[in-house]
């Protein structure tokens, strides 16, 4: 066998270095400038509403058997087809939670999917939807999280093949995903409908499961909330369109009661497939917000 010439080796090495540099360059994060954060007196009350609207606790819950089961200290395994994620502790613990995060750290995480150290978050954390949230709402949400008791909780690293490389590669995916505009609901509905559209599409991130994804694993907005394969890999997620025509619910009052009570009062379509946890969060919203969500959802044809 002939060994490659020194020149070939040099060329191959150069090519590799250039490719690695290009990959590094293309996958770098794009944090918001600090000037993008407005001066704002945060409301923890509004933050709590958003905490429930976004069902933060559904994913950031502690695993079975933890000492405090009601605080979002994270770590409950979140299974997806690409691997198992261990959601972040979002209590204000300085070492393992958000205790040391600045306002811009938090807004960057929620809207750009960037950790304070600049690493990418996998889109299992739904920043694709959260980026449509108002910055003031994000600051209120942060203030609410910071008002919770701090819990120290150390989690295993995500169980994803080639974790480091995959994480960096998310930067490439973001170049396409974040370049696409988030779903913009039509205008012209009343105040309650508009509020519902915001809650469903931005903090609520309903589309993460209820909107099918295209080949790039980005939501196919042409089939907005039309249902599709379950992101967990087994079964299907129902469509949220035509709920009235398909006689799933009778009217806004009916869907509101269903969302507020879930299967505890026998609304059996609101458990299964992870929806039970979401419903538990939505039930904690002010009644007017649950009605707004219902009004918007039932308007989808």
């Amino acid at each position, binding site marked *: 066998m002939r060994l490659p010439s020194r020149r070939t080796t040099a060329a191959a090495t150069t090519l590799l270095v250039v490719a690695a540099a290009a990959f590094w360059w293309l996958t770098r994060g794009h944090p918001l400038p600090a000037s993008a954060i407005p001066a704002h007196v945060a409301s923890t009350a509004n933050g709590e509403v958003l905490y429930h609207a976004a069902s933060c606790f559904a994913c950031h819950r502690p695993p079975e058997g933890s000492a405090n089961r009601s605080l979002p200290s994270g770590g409950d395994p979140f299974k997806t087809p690409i691997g198992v994620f261990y959601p972040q502790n979002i209590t204000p613990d300085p070492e393992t939670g958000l205790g040391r995060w600045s306002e811009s750290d938090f807004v960057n995480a929620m809207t750009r999917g960037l950790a304070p150290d600049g690493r990418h978050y996998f889109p299992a954390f739904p920043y694709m939807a959260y980026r449509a949230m108002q910055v003031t709402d994000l600051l209120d949400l942060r203030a609410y999280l910071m008002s919770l008791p701090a819990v120290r909780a150390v989690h295993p690293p995500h169980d994803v093949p080639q974790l480091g490389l995959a994480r960096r590669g998310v930067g490439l995916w973001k170049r396409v995903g974040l370049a696409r505009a988030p779903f913009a609901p039509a205008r012209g509905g009343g105040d309650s409908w508009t509020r519902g559209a915001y809650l469903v599409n931005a903090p609520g991130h309903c589309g993460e499961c209820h909107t099918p994804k295209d080949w790039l694993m980005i939501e196919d907005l042409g089939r907005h909330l039309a249902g599709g394969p*379950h992101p967990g890999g087994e079964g299907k997620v129902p469509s949220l369109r035509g709920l009235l025509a398909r006689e799933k619910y009778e009217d806004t009052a009916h869907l509101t009661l269903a969302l507020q009570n879930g299967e505890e*009062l026998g609304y059996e379509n609101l*458990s*299964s*497939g992870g929806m039970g946890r979401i419903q538990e969060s939505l039930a904690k919203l002010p009644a007017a917000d649950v009605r707004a969500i219902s009004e918007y959802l039932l308007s989808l044809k």
Partner: protein
Amino acid sequence: MTREEHVSFTRRTLGWTAGLLMGTTGAGGAALASDPAHLRHEAMETVGDSFKPLRAIALKEAPFDVAVVKKNATVILAKLKEAHGLFPEGSGGGKSRAKAEIWSDRAGFDKAMQKAQAAAAALSAVTEEAAYDAAIKTLGGGCKGCHDTYRLPKD
């Protein structure tokens, strides 16, 4: 043909023949009547129907009536017990929304089922309106506890 192929061929032939016979003799109902997935679905439908008048009481759409509560909670308990016995190994898949976890975590499934049954029994014994709200939510929570983990969502 190897022995295994032969057995499989024979099974297939028998299956087809049985299917044809059922189709021609209208015995399709008999097959359903012995299909655990179908039977447990029917039992659960009855649970759902019996839950409706109980929900109406909880939502104050109907007055609290001990007789209505006892009757429906008793039916629910009986049907839950019946359904619990209708999850033999290998009866998932197809149209069934049963998740594989039922069989891979049988102990957890049995525990969740028993919790719902205990809640139905407790509800059937409720005689005071003051205790009703908590009792029906415990029963509904029992349904939810099982469905959250062991049932696939509906299309």
